[in-house]
């Protein structure tokens, strides 16, 4: 029955999926176009899809803004440092926990971690702990409190449990200890999970707003997300710039350019890791 004839089903399906794609992409296309258009077209609200009077003035302004530039640097430092710490500690911990028959007090350690998924101290006690640890207003306040999540540990542990025991035993016979087995035998076959977890961690740090917002005072240490909020949501102007009648760009273009600049790194990286994270997410969701 359903051969070459285009059924109403197919039409509905295609219309629906096209709608989904467009509604996801359109806001970004619009922002890019508005940030690349000339002043007059933006002010007259003429931008609908493509840029009018293509120019890169807005981006020149954004990149010349010291505050944004510094925030960009800070964000990169937080992402790299945070992801490195998070991956190291999570990988080691998850591997240790995956040996449930050998690890002493396994049940206790496991419970210790699972509890944190359902109950926490809350915003204020956590702030006070960060303060008592003398971390306030340092890089570590942004990097450390969110470095380890129970969820990530459990996903990774589940992945490591799949590792064949015979290979592990052969490693012991060759004189490796657990650390050696992890480093030489397990990690080389764990590319998918490592890539997924690193991506999730990096995106998490890139996007993190609450930690820097609560724990940082020093303007010079603020990351991109906090700066973005004050520029776009709260409407403070860009530094050293007086967007007036004479400047070649309008404020909207600048704001859109700032948003675009802050999402570009993520949007260019995630499609390449998609095949890994699909695998990684499956491991976590099906067994978790």
């Amino acid at each position, binding site marked *: 029955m359903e051969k070459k004839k285009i059924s109403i*089903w197919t039409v509905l*399906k295609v219309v629906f*999926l096209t709608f*989904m*794609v467009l*509604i*996801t992409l359109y806001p970004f296309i619009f922002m890019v176009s508005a940030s690349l258009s000339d002043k007059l077209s933006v002010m007259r*609200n003429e931008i609908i899809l493509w840029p009018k009077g293509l120019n890169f003035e807005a981006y020149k302004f954004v990149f010349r803004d010291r505050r944004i530039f510094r925030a960009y640097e800070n964000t990169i430092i937080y992402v790299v440092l945070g992801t490195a710490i998070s991956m*190291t*500690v999570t990988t*080691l*911990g998850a*591997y*240790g926990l995956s*040996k449930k028959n*050998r*690890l*002493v007090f396994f049940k206790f*350690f496991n419970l*210790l971690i699972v509890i*944190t998924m*359902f*109950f*926490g*101290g*809350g*915003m*204020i*006690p*956590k*702030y*006070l*702990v960060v303060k008592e640890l003398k971390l306030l207003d340092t890089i570590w306040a942004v990097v*450390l409190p969110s470095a*380890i999540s*129970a969820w990530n*540990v459990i996903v990774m542990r589940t992945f490591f449990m799949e590792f064949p025991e015979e290979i592990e035993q052969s490693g012991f*016979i060759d004189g490796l*200890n657990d*650390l050696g087995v*992890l480093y030489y035998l397990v990690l080389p076959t764990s590319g998918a999970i490592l890539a997924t977890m690193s991506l999730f961690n990096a995106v998490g740090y890139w*996007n993190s*707003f609450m930690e820097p917002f609560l724990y940082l005072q020093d303007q010079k240490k603020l990351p991109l*997300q*906090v700066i*973005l*909020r004050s520029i*776009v*949501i709260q409407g403070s102007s860009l530094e050293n710039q007086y967007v007036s009648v004479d400047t070649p760009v309008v404020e909207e273009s600048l*704001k*859109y350019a700032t*948003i675009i600049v*802050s*999402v570009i790194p993520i*949007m260019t990286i*995630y499609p390449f890791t*998609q095949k890994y994270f*699909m695998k990684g*997410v*499956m491991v976590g969701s099906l067994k978790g």
Partner: protein
Amino acid sequence: MSNTNILPKTGMGRFLKRLNDSKYLLIMILPMLTFFILFNYLPMYGIIIAFKQYSPFKGFFDSPWVGFKHFQTFFAYQHAWRLIRNTFLLSFYSLIWGFPAPIIFALILNEVKNERGKKLVQTVTYMPHFISTVVVVSMITMFLSPSTGIVNKLVEALGYKKINFMINPGWFRPIYIASGIWQGVGWGSIIYLAALSNIDPTLYASAMIDGANKLQRIIHISIPCIAPTIITLLILRTGNLMSVGFEKAFLLQGTATYETSDVIQTFVYRQGMRAGNMSYATAIGLFNSVINLCFLVSANYISRRVNETSLW
């Protein structure tokens, strides 16, 4: 490993042997445990200040005990009910509108035979998941702006008066929920697509022989097969009905919309971080987490009784 045949006789000896066998494992989990203790368990211990009158000068230990005073203050607060209602309704409506969306999307996407097209749709719709809350709220603020926003341009073109979305309490929930769906529908569908791909294709083949059309196949095969996944996720979501995250509500709200937008977590922030009432704020936060826990435990209990599906 070489002396495994010499089994220690006593319980103590056996324990020491196990300890020795897992010494490297213990070293490996030590850093992780330190993190959990510092940033999860110390804050939990810090909850005691909910029952004290915390003062930064006296510290955790020397601040005087006040019992349930802060909880009483909260329940006597004129807007306490509003906070509880807003928190609950915001996640309740998000659940009602947002929960079915990824399921429907997955069911339709699963019908696509063209692998490349399917992959493209997936890649595109996952994108918003990776965008930060700040960016999403920035986009909302820009698009809905009464003076320059593209949405108001459309509203005007349709012959209506411009709407000042961001300061109108009636618009807060629709904006919060719609943007939540926009951000989460693609990503949320992954787990259902995985469940759908595990369905035995012969089921569909035999249904076709019996003359079932596409819709019938979806209703009678696809949906029942992914029901366990749906139920598990539904438990998780109902367990979180009182937990509205701080970030998005905070970024999206303004004083003008508190009637609908002020939730427990944003109030905790204002009391604790702005007004400096650390103990009061902690007490409200604790009240919130205890309710959450009750929701989760009861949702899990009900589901275990009814469906024999449970989280633990």
